[in-house]
Each structure stands twice: as structure tokens, then as C-alpha cells.
């Protein structure tokens, strides 16, 4: 089973990203797929998480994810206030929306780091939501590139389950660009 935690702020589409991944994985043939928001009240701008679990077998676990195989960070300022690295599993993967390079991150942890400037891609594609660049969907492209659990084709199919075709088209353009621009380190470097 792969456990994915999404970190972002209220209004960034954190829950939607977790759900699109779930839809994509289900369409790709995984029998066990669940996706949940952080339980509780929601507030724009407040730090929040969402989760996706993906497994070839149906899932019987409903408790919260302790440590993630893949952590996806929509807002890198959250890494200062939330234990993102600490909740990423050994051998796992940390994907960050950032203008910086992998080498700029000095994080202790036995996992790979992947970076992509999702905000820049969103600005280039004129994709904004509530005045902010849409970074949730491009990160799905980064995930498809480095995780090895989901293909770009199924991300496109999953996207269409959650939004109208015209939106899916423009979002998928951004996803493909993010897929190409994602850079990844080796473990611990």
C-alpha cells in the first residue's frame, strides 16, 4: 500500500488533488483506493492536509496516516511549521512546489526529494484560483514523473472525473509541463 499525504492551505485545492489521484489510481486498476481530507472545520489560508491511500487490495484501514510514502507540499512555507519531513517514510519521496532546486533543501531524512515550480507553470498557463496560481494539479504531473505508481494517461482520465472537459484540458497542459520540469535527487542528498 502507498500512503500519500498532501500539505497545503485552505483554498489551494489540496483535497481535490488527493481525490484526483484516487480517481486516477482507481481507473488505472488499483482495487483499494481511499481519499480523505483532514477531519474537521476548514478555513481559507489555514494549513491543512489531505490523504490518498492506494493498494492493489481493498483497504480496511481507516485510521490516519502516521508516515507517508509520498509527501506532496503545495506551499513550502508549511515545511517550517509542520513536520513534513518527519512524517515521510524512509525510502519515500518528498515532492515540493518551489522555485528552488533540490540542492537548496538540506533536510535530514532517508528519502528522495523532487522539486517543481508549479506556481510558475500555473502563471505561464494563466491558471489562477481565487487570485492564486493553481498549483494542485501540476503537482500531480510531478507525482506521475517520480513516484512510479501512476501514469500520466490515468492522471488525465482521473482529472476528467473531477472537472469539466475544458478545465481538464487546461489543467492537463500544466500537468504535462510539470511532468517535464520535475527534478529529483537521490536519497539523502
Amino acid at each position, binding site marked *: 500500500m502507498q500512503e500519500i499525504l498532501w500539505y497545503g492551505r485552505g483554498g489551494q485545492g489540496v483535497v481535490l488533488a488527493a481525490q484526483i489521484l484516487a480517481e486516477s489510481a*482507481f481507473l488505472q486498476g488499483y482495487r483499494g483506493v481511499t481519499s*480523505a481530507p483532514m477531519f474537521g472545520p476548514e478555513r481559507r489560508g489555514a494549513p491543512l492536509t489531505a490523504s490518498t491511500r492506494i493498494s492493489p487490495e481493498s483497504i480496511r484501514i481507516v485510521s490516519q496516516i502516521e508516515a507517508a510514502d509520498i509527501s506532496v507540499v503545495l506551499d513550502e512555507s508549511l515545511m517550517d511549521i509542520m513536520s513534513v519531513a518527519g512524517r515521510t517514510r524512509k525510502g519515500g519521496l518528498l515532492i515540493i512546489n518551489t522555485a528552488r532546486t533540490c540542492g537548496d533543501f538540506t533536510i535530514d531524512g532517508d528519502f528522495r526529494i523532487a522539486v517543481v515550480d508549479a506556481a510558475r507553470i500555473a502563471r505561464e498557463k494563466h491558471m489562477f484560483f481565487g487570485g492564486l496560481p493553481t498549483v494542485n494539479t501540476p503537482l500531480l504531473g510531478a507525482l506521475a514523473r517520480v513516484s512510479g505508481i501512476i501514469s500520466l494517461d490515468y492522471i488525465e482520465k482521473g482529472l476528467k*472525473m473531477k472537472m469539466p472537459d475544458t478545465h481538464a484540458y487546461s489543467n492537463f497542459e500544466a500537468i504535462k509541463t510539470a511532468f517535464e520540469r520535475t527534478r529529483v535527487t537521490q536519497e539523502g542528498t
Partner: protein
Amino acid sequence: MSHCELITGNEAAAYAVKLVKPHVIAAYPITPQTSLSEKISLYIESGEIKAEYVTVESEHSAMTVLISASTMGARTFTATSANGLLYMHEQLHWAAGSRLPIVMCCVNRGVGAPWSIFNDQQDSFSQRDAGWIQMYCRNNQEIIDTVIQAYRIAEEVYIPVMVCYDGFILSHTMMPVEIPEESLVQEFLPPYTPHTEISPESPKTVNPVFFPWRRENHEGVLCDGYMEKRYKLQDALLHSADIIRRTNRDFAAMFGRDWGGMTWEYRTDDADIFIVGMGSLAMEATVAADELRRGGIRAGVLGIRVFRPFPCREVADALRGARAIIVFEKCVSYGQTGGFSTDLKAALYGTGITAPLHNYVAGLGGRDVKARELTEAVEGSLTAIDGGDGEHKTVWLNCFTG
């Protein structure tokens, strides 16, 4: 043809409501039920549910609207959580006493004070004695299937049914759900016929003051007193267990999914350590049973699907070979012990089952409970029991009690 969708527990419940085609719906939003009543409103707005949606100012009024509608022969639905359910309390008794087949979802949430919007099962547990059937679901597929079954059960035995499922843990979590074929649901669920016909041409007074004694009516027929009416409710509830078992069998034959009727079991064939629970916590316990078996402990899970009527026969049969019974429960009978285990102990009295019973009050107000913690709790209990301690014990799991 049936098809599969990734949906939340609340969406699964709303889907079931769409499939059973109710006539009257009245609900008041409350977290974590809200997205269910929102979804139903959308279905009504789009014409996918052709029901009268009565907007009300409270849960008490929601149930009162349904009591009136159900009396007139309408199929009805409502849903609530926690303090909303408590506000309905008086009318819950009235619905059951009137023998009305109302179906309600209780999206389980902790009860204030102090305020919590998070999950436990204290809300529905506290309505245990209102005369309703109570069913608990372990995942979203069971929610959609159980709501459909609930209507057939309710309308056959004339008892309201509360379909309970864990707030947030199921209500807000997406998982794959097979959507039953609409024509099959129509075949499975015959139209509702009220037990008493009331119309302007045939006016009747329903449930006026009953006296302690039996009394002749104006035609000279000796009629029930209050006590006979109440006995009939109890008798019908006890006998509804057979209907619930049969409904589950018929559902399984038609839709291919068997939820076990009154209870369900996981890896119990050769088990001597029994973990008992209700709802999503019992599903998580199946993972703990797997872990325990890897450690050489023959553990199995007895899941309680129906809490009222109490599955006396099933628990006695299942626990016959138990060396230890470990209950995990999200409710408390304050001043006694864990809510469910109190009833379980009562059901085992006189059956000859004397295995030590440890009960863990867990997950109150949404406190997370992991399979690993269930495993550790069982191992801890077994250390005490194998060390010769045969006493029953209550522990508040993951709770600072020092």
C-alpha cells in the same frame, strides 16, 4: 447495469436515498451529516429525487414532519448527528411507538459538552432504548447497501431504522462503491403500505391518551391498553432479527454482497481470541487480527452490524470457543462500563461462556485509533489473562487517566 464510483460515505447514503425514491425528506444540517443533506438537496433540485423536501428549523421538527408523512403512507428519510439526534429524542420514541417505518442516517459524532464535531458512537448509543432498529456500517459500500435494506426491514416490521456510520472516518472519506442497479432496487423494495389508512373519508385519532387498562371502543371491541401496545413494539423488535437476517440473504442473492445479517465475522473459524466491535473500528480491527495471527495468536473479529435488536444468538454462537473476548467501543454507559460491552455481558449471562472480557473505550471525540494500537491492546490483555487474571477489565485506550 451497476457501476463503481469513488464516493464518500455521505454520498453513498445520498445515492441510496435516490434509489429508494422517498416521498418526503426533512433534515436539518449538522456536521458531519451536512454534506449528505446538501447532496440530497441537489438531487431534488435536479429532479433526480422527486420528493417533497421540507426545510425545518430543528431536528425535532424534522422527525415530526416525517412522523406525519409516514402516518399518511409516505416513504420518508432524514439524517442527523450528535446533538441534533439528541434534540430529536422525544420524537424518536414517538416514531417507534407509532410503528412508523422511518429510515434515518445517524452520522456518528461525539456528544457535547465539551463540544466535539468528531467521531464516536455516543450519540446513537444514547438513543438505544428509543425502540428503533440500529445498524452500524463498516465502509461506504455497506452504507449504500444498508440504507436500501433498512427500508425493506422497516416497512416489513413497522419499526423505524437508524443506519449509523462513523462521522468523517466514513462520511468524508472516498472509497470505491458499487452503485446498485435502479431496477433491481425497485424489485428488491416493494412499495410501502401504511399499517393504518387515514384519509378525510376515513378519519381516525392516532395515539390518543391510552389508559393503564384495556378498554372497549365504540363498537364494543376490547382494545389494547398502553402496556399491550408497548409489548407489541418489544415483540416486533425481537422478531425483527429474523427479518433482518432474511433481508440480508435476499439482498446478497440479488446484489452479490453479503453483510452478515446481524453480525459478521473475520478469520474466526479457528479463533480463540475474539475482538468485538461496531462500525469502521471493527473493520480496522480485522487488520489487527491479521497482525496478531502473524505473531502466532489465533485472533478473529466479531463485528456487530445490528445493535438493536441485540444479536444474542449470534454472539453466543460466535463466542462459544473464546478464550478471551476483547471489545473495542466508541461509547460509554456512564456510571457503568463501555456501552456495548455492558450489553454483551448481559447477553452472555447464562450461556455458559465465561471467558474473561476486556473492554477498551476508544476513539472518543475523534481520537485516532490505529490497527497497531488495537494489536498492542489485545497483546496486553492476553498477557494479563494468560498470567491467570480472569477478571473483567475496562481500559480507556490512548487516554491519559493518571
